């Protein structure tokens, strides 16, 4: 098919680029000209050996993946489309390292074009011509081909040289392989062989590119007396320049002929060796990265995989407990270090680097699953203290903030891997006593704080009106309050403010009172899948009994699991985060502002609202509508730095001898000149930052406030001596089942 397409322009251009009197068929690149038979035969023998080694390697990789757990993947076609889009735009590679992305694009597109070029030669010379006599690789098609490949090769070499410069001189911390989860005395502390592999990979490719040009030039000098070659030298400009260089140092045609043979073999053997080792080395990312990108989940961290609780085993503590897709993910890692840099645990000295976790599992899988037969079960253990094993403290360091998943250019999904391993730890009861206590509290009392169910609504007693009981009467909006928003004394003030705002805005809302249980988001992320499913089912059972149109919550964690995970348990609801509702009510005037903020504020994206559910804009727009001067922190939006409370870490106290993620974040905020308020949008972030503000000595510098509190401040509700004294609630639409009717 491509021949037909290519033939047409060839004929058309024949007249324009081929000199009169020359046979276009003569204008082509010589391949094996002047090769003795033995040389030709040895080349084919070596080539077939290389391909055989390559194919066996591919087979061994596929066999390795097949040893993982089965998994059926839907949406493969749209995944492939997304992968192609990612490849063509290099979007994932350019993020947060534009220079590396651009140069990778040079290498990638250079490689692809050179590969297509070489394949075209093989297609004609070894397949089409012997079989059908068809020839197309000559004349102007060849000349254009030659020019394009010269440009591609130039880009390829430039890209590779930049990568060498980057590794050697930029000293990027993310390319430092020293591991936070190992001590310098551990044998796998820095994995020095990775560095060797990196350099071999770069040198091999650079030499391939450079010898290609040298060879091209040698050919030109050798055949300088053949007008079908020399006349067209500028169609391979790099080759031509080098050829003039050769001539300048006195290389003769005969000398160039000898040089050509030597370079031909060097270049050819290097290329074939490269092909042969692709499945066994870093080079395999060419294939695995593409596959990994195509297999990406839509919501890898927001919606965790279900676990069959009736199965013999839950979670992953052995390498064969991972799915084939996860084993493939492990192979896709290129050690680019973007996750390593983004991880809040790593940034604050916890023994976790998402990169090293993935590489540890890769090493384990390569060491155990690549052989012809399977090793004994005990060698497959993935959790432990040994080489190629992940330590439990590494797994417990994770905040499931998904910064790693989000930035990974090749679509590796770290969070589900970590949670699967945590499931195995929980099943074996390997966890911090404080976490065990929290889980027991949730099991016994439905909340992590161990408070009595009846106290869940204690915060409502300070309101001078009563909130509807959604279990008893129909409401428009069901407010799922969540544990911290109900019990945390600081956040109770926010819950009260939100109740007053809703009431003033004339929203018909209710809560579940003591029937509400912990939504289970963090319970699932801790790895207690049984308890999560119990909580989801219990809450859904309660919700099914209620009459409401949609759910709102101030808690991004509850929001995430209800939105993304409850549908698996037949709990399909329209749910929105309070910030989105506030933004809407500010925009349509349902919330009437009496004053504007003039203060300088910054906004912290909660992971579960921002990265996991893309709720970046409504809170910002709300803050702007309040009239505040919003200054962004260095790390914001998708690069927001977790407060440290996610993934159940709110139940495991951070050690006091290290900087806490929350302290790191508060210090970042404090670097903003004249900052007055750090605005948060999550009960857990509030809890973390209120502490961190004190422990970092910023207590007198700025306040930590919820968006909701700022809204209430601008509504000036406090100035009215209670909403009832202030007459009809502002913004209450007539005919609305106004909550004011049930005022105290």
């Amino acid at each position, binding site marked *: 098919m491509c021949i037909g397409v290519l033939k047409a322009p060839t004929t058309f251009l024949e007249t324009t680029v081929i000199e009169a009197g020359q046979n276009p068929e003569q204008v082509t690149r010589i391949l094996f000209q002047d090769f003795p038979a033995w040389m030709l035969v040895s080349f084919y023998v070596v080539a077939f050996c290389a391909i055989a080694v390559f194919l066996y390697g591919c087979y061994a990789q596929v066999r390795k993946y097949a040893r993982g757990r089965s998994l059926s993947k839907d949406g493969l076609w749209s995944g492939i489309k997304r992968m192609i889009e990612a490849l063509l735009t290099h979007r994932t590679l350019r993020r947060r390292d534009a220079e590396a992305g651009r140069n990778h694009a040079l290498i990638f597109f250079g490689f692809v074009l050179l590969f297509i070029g070489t394949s075209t030669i093989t297609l004609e010379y070894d397949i089409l011509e012997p079989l059908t006599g068809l020839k197309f690789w000559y004349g102007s098609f060849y000349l254009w081909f030659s020019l394009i490949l010269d440009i591609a090769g130039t880009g390829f070499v430039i890209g590779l040289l930049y990568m060498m410069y980057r590794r050697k001189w930029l000293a990027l911390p993310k390319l430092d392989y020293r591991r936070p989860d190992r001590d310098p005395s551990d044998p796998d502390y820095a994995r020095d062989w990775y560095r060797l592999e990196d350099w071999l990979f770069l040198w091999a490719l650079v030499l391939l590119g450079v010898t290609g040009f040298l060879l091209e030039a040698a050919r030109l000098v050798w055949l300088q007396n053949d007008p079908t070659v020399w006349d067209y030298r500028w169609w391979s400009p790099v080759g031509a320049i080098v050829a003039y260089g050769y001539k300048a140092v006195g290389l003769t045609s005969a000398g160039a002929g000898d040089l050509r043979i030597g370079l031909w073999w060097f270049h050819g053997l290097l290329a074939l060796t490269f092909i042969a080792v692709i499945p066994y080395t870093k080079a395999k990312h060419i294939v695995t990265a593409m596959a990994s990108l195509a297999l990406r989940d839509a919501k890898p961290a927001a919606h965790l995989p279900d676990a069959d*609780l*009736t199965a013999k085993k*839950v979670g992953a503590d052995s390498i064969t407990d991972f799915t084939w897709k996860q084993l493939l993910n492990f192979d896709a890692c290129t050690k680019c270090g973007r996750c390593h840099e983004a991880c809040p645990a790593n940034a604050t000295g916890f023994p976790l680097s998402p990169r090293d976790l993935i590489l540890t599992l890769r090493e384990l899988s390569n060491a155990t699953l690549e052989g012809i037969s399977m090793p004994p079960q005990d060698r497959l253990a993935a959790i432990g203290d040994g080489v190629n094993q992940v330590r439990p403290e590494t797994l417990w360091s994770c905040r499931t903030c998904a910064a790693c998943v989000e930035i990974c250019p090749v679509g590796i999904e770290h969070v589900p891997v970590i949670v699967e391993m945590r499931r195995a730890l*929980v*099943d074996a*009861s390997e*966890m911090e*006593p404080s976490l*065990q206590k929290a*889980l*027991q509290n949730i*099991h*016994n*009392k439905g909340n992590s704080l161990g408070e*009595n169910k*009846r*106290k869940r609504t204690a915060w409502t007693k300070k309101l001078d009106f009563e909130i509807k009981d959604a279990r008893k009467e129909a409401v428009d909006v069901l407010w799922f309050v969540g544990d911290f928003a109900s019990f945390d004394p600081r956040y109770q003030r926010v819950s009260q403010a939100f109740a007053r705002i809703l009431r003033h805005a004339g929203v018909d809302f209710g809560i579940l009172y003591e029937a509400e249980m912990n939504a289970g988001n963090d319970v699932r992320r801790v790895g*207690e*899948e*049984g*308890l999560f*499913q*119990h909580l989801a089912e219990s809450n859904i059972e309660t919700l099914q009994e209620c009459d409401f149109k949609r759910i709102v919550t101030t808690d991004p964690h509850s929001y995430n699991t209800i939105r993304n995970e409850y549908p698996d348990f037949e709990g399909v609801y329209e749910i929105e985060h309070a910030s989105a509702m506030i933004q809407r009510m500010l925009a349509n005037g349902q919330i009437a502002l009496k004053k504007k903020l003039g203060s300088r504020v910054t906004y912290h994206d909660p992971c579960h609202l921002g990265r996991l559910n893309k709720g970046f804009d409504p809170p910002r727009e709300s803050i702007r509508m309040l009239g505040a001067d919003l200054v962004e922190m260095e790390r914001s939006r998708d690069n927001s730095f977790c407060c440290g409370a996610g993934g159940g870490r709110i139940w495991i106290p951070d050690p006091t001898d290290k900087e806490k993620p929350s302290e790191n974040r508060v210090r970042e905020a404090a670097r903003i000149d004249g900052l007055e308020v750090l605005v948060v949008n999550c009960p857990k972030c509030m809890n973390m930052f209120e502490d961190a503000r004190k422990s970092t000595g910023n207590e007198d510098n700025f306040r930590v406030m919820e968006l909701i509190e700022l809204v209430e401040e601008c509504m000036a509700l406090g100035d009215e001596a209670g909403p009832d004294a202030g007459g009809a609630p502002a913004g209450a639409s007539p005919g609305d089942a106004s909550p004011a009717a049930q005022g105290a």
Partner: protein
Amino acid sequence: MKILVPVKQIGVVDEDFELRGDGKDVDPDFLNFEANEWDDYSYEAALQIMEAADGVEVVPVTVGPDDAEDVLRRCLAKGGERGIRVWDDALEDASPAAIVQVLAKVVEKEQPDMVFTGTLSSDRSYAQTGVGLAAALGWPHAAVITGIEWKPGDPKATLLRELEGGLVEQLSVNCPVVLTIQLGINTPRYASLRGVKQAKEKPVEDLSLADLGLSGDDLAAAGGSFRVRRMYKPETGQAELIEGTPAEQAARLVEIINELKGAA
């Protein structure tokens, strides 16, 4: 080789509660039922012995109504293959002495080699069941144990007890023996909800008093060395945080002292 572990469901009192009509106990409406914390440790101690040797069976037993079965399920989620629950309406408000009679019959039936109980149950804090059971069986006993060195077949167990002033007492005791286990002897494992669900498949033998050859009269005869006369909440004192300059604080302190003097 068998270890019997009596466990108990306890009532935890709400922050706001009311007393029962007769004033002798808390109204059960205000109780949350949970497993007794000490029993987590005694059960864990038994499981660790089970896991360290072959052919050891651990059997949890409880005396309590239907919903006390949860406590057994939570034990079985951690280990063990079967449980025993004894109940009879006559056991409502049973004294420790009566419970001891019941457990002694269970021991007679099960013939365990060891019995591990918690040192006490946090709702009543009598700390009588374990030692009473040993007396009823005529077995030796040791209380408030913080360390056990024993494996199946050993004629004697070496035990540790923590005393005041940071002292540790090491003692050896002849087996079979009843041990009452103290908090902190080990780290009890977590019973995952998956484990609890799977434990629902494990058999729990429900026994009545008659099944054990006991009657309500036997329990009455066992009686007890005491009876509850009434339960009440004593009036709590008042605390006040004195603020202000040292002089103001001193003035307020004098005021309070004078007030209290006057009241006395």
